[in-house]
């Protein structure tokens, strides 16, 4: 590097913005060049002089700004919630689900409808008119409206009545189809709100016949950031613990999950279906398990299976 190049790089060098290779080259040059070393000194003095001009905002100004801001926010209308969409779109999708109606032998109940409410809240699109067997007491054309599901009343005939708040209380009623509820619950499994995800795991537990449901549970058990959701998903996987794919995921969770309660739940699931591969998994994991309670559980499980505690 020559002096001209180094000269251009001095400010970047000073602020640590050069890549390691360039930084090395400049270092080396500076080691042997007095002129450039003085350039660096001048850069340092400039920076120091500039630092004389400190400007911490005075505390009263900051407080004033904060108060002013919150006042302005409280005075302004609330911005729409994330993922909340026009009520019209909610009705449209609701209608889409209801239009393939069959009578269900037993209503799925309030929890499902909570999921419905949340699922509906994630929809986008425009609603045009009521179709099919959904009867809506009145329609608000267009515009942004927000809904909160308030109550759900299943009746013995397999119909469900949902009450939700819009700008005035409205009621929608229609029968519900089982498979559709499942779809909603699967959608709710991806909902941002962890407590909705927990609920949907709970409901999916009873529907593990479908591979979509199994996959949703596996995905949640392995990847959901919320501990409660993972635990619920594992509960749901109990009947499927013999399935090899489930087994593989369980092994991963046992190895990688940060939460000991989750790991213990996995041990429970694995011991429900003992066989050689389970033994192998446990023997491997026990070596690296650093939580005492979990390790004890593993030891106990292995003993019960008449297996040795480790591979030696």
């Amino acid at each position, binding site marked *: 590097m020559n002096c001209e190049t180094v000269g251009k790089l001095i400010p970047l060098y000073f*602020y640590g913005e050069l890549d390691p290779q360039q930084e090395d080259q400049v270092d080396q040059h500076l080691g042997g060049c007095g002129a450039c070393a003085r350039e660096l000194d001048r850069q340092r003095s*400039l920076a120091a002089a*500039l630092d004389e001009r*400190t400007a911490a*905002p005075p505390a009263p100004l900051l407080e004033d700004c904060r108060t*002013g801001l919150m006042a302005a926010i409280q005075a302004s209308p609330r911005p729409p919630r994330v993922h909340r969409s026009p009520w019209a779109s909610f009705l449209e999708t609701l209608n889409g689900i209801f239009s393939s109606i069959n009578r269900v032998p037993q209503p799925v109940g309030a929890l499902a409808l909570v999921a419905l409410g949340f699922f509906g809240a994630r929809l986008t699109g425009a609603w045009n008119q009521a179709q099919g067997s959904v009867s809506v007491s009145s329609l608000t054309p267009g515009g942004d409206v927000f809904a909160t599901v308030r109550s759900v009343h299943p009746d013995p005939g397999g119909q469900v009545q949902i009450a939700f708040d819009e700008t005035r209380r409205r009621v929608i009623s229609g029968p519900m189809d089982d498979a559709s509820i499942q779809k909603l619950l699967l959608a709710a499994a991806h909902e941002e709100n962890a407590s909705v995800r927990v609920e949907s795991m709970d409901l999916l537990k009873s529907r593990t016949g479908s591979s979509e449901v199994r996959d949703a549970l596996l995905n949640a058990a392995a990847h959901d950031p919320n501990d409660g959701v993972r635990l619920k998903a594992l509960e749901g996987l109990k009947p499927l613990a013999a399935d090899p794919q489930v087994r593989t995921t369980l092994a991963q969770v046992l190895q990688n999950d940060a939460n000991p309660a989750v790991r213990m739940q996995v041990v429970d699931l694995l011991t429900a279906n003992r066989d050689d591969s389970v033994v192998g998994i446990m023997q491997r994991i026990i070596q690296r398990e650093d939580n005492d309670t979990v390790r004890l559980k593993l030891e106990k499980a292995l003993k019960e299976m008449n297996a040795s505690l480790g591979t030696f």
Partner: protein
Amino acid sequence: MAQEAAGAVSARAGPHVDSLIRAAQQGDQDAFAQLVRLYDQSVLRLAMNLLRSQEDARDVYQEAFLRVYRNLDTFRFDCSFHTWLYRIVTNICLDHLRKRKVRKEEPSVVETAQGPVDRMDVVAEEGPAADPERSLWNRQLRERIEGALGDLTPRERMVFELRHYQGLRLRNIGEMLGTSEEAAKNCLFRATQKLRAELGDFV
């Protein structure tokens, strides 16, 4: 000093900030207030440094955070909140800076009964035991610095302020200003050249 500001901001990044953002997006005003408090000192400091006026800084603060509040649902966690916030803040500050360049400047120094007073001199830094000679020198230095900074283009000023006083990386600065790291580097270089030229005899 600038480095600790940058460190402090990044130390606060992470799950806590994310959950505040999500709560605020759901309409939780208290969460929004907490979120604001994590960043507003730096924002106000930036505005003060650039505009040298409490009133203007307050205006920028209000405008920026209101814009954040109204558009919070468009934040999709694809960049850091700090970067997203600063995109808004730098945008508003640059607008103010550009308007100033266009408007005819009133002289900032006015005569008062106590002698000449610089209206732009909003920051009182001297302690109670300040040495008058040192104070004078400091004051002259500050005036020279303000003058030199004022001669930078708005963009150069912004890049310099963010790099030197807020300790942000040029790559991050580029993201905030919607430009490349390379362009930000060139900007910084030009800014330091100009400052060196004007403040040469002081340093």
